[in-house]
């Protein structure tokens, strides 16, 4: 077993897990079930979270490789974050959610993008979301919503 003390969504969280556990499983076992597992191969992006501000797919991350003190942001913490809240609002306003399964990952990829580039253009948004698959194929509204959250074109 491995023990870690992380900052998850701004709050300290002590976790204990099997050495080989994946980050997605450890987070979900803590009740943070907003993070979805889609493909389990890093292809679909549904399990995306931010670790120390960097977008990762939690199905391909070993929980043990995240050191004590790692700052993890999941979709549950997004509302408390000003940029995250804007992204959520834009997804609601533009109906950028269909079945919703990809939405947490989409929101996290958008948050990672706006964290490093507050005013991306459409091509930059598409590139930043290129690892996130929406099986309802609602991409146009999703990209629009990220642009609106960034205060630019779209809508």
């Amino acid at each position, binding site marked *: 077993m491995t023990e870690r003390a992380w900052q998850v969504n701004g709050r300290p969280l002590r976790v204990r897990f099997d050495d080989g556990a994946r980050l997605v499983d450890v987070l979900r076992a803590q009740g943070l079930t907003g993070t979805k597992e889609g493909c389990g191969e*890093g292809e679909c992006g549904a399990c995306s979270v931010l670790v120390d501000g960097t977008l990762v*797919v939690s199905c*391909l*991350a*070993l929980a043990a*490789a995240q050191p004590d003190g790692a700052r993890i942001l999941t979709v549950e913490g997004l509302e408390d974050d000003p940029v995250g809240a804007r992204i959520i609002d834009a997804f609601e306003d533009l109906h950028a959610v269909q079945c919703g399964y990809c939405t947490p990952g989409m929101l996290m990829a958008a948050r990672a993008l706006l964290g490093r580039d507050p005013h991306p253009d459409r091509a930059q948004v598409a590139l*930043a979301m*290129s*690892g996130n698959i929406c099986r309802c194929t609602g991409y146009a509204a999703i990209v629009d919503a990220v642009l609106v959250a960034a205060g630019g074109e779209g809508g």
Partner: protein
Amino acid sequence: MKVLTPRRLDEALEMKAERPDAVWAAGTTDLLPRWNGGAPRPAMVVSLASIGDLAGIEARGDRIRIGALATHADIASHLVVRERLACLADAARSVGAPAIRNMGTLGGNLANASPAADMPPALLALDAEVHLASRRGERGVPVSGFFVSYGRVDLEPDELIVAVSACLPRPRAVTWFRKLGTRRAQSIAKLSVAGHAEAGDLLAHVRLAAGAVAPVPLRLRRTEEIVEGRANGHETRALAAGTAEREVTPIDDVRSSAGYRRAMVGVLVARFLESLDAGRV
């Protein structure tokens, strides 16, 4: 499965020397899909994630040294790489998607030993060297000698890839990388080609390499030799394309066919040579 998380390189090398059956883990973007897919997990894993000093990229004089734990995102965004090593920046940008580039490392891309990996052709075109460390000391291996056979690299059980280094191309030189896949993101290459040459009246210092067209990432040495010193015209390009097509040994698989791969190696080699002309004013 037990996971060890050393903080220093010497600790990591000690652990691996004592347990040569342990598996190194870096970004785990290749290991976890394998394990998630049901492949047997090793009894012990040495995770390198906490060894920060293996992730640096250092350009000094005419050489660049890239730590094995530098991610593809680190490499693609590094100023010197973007300005002087276009082939490497473009190869790094073509890996997976943003999250995969944030996780996957250069050392992992090499150690995974896939003939379809994106970084090796670019490194081959740069005559790069792989630096290996173990408790016994360090050694360097040219990238061209590192890929031994399908899925196998020149790495002893107690050794770790610690860095890759290369000479910065001369100011007149152009480096180039193209990958063909089903879409731009999240594709494993159908094939890829990297090129490096000095633009001038005659082709000089030509380096060509290709991925996913042989059991290992392949230097196209015969094609290099045949075009070196020639004027870069239509005839030379046709000769280069034809030679490259005969030099590769592609297979049919789920991603592409041998015929397509063979034909496209020729096309991409010719396009690289054309790009040299386009760069001249």
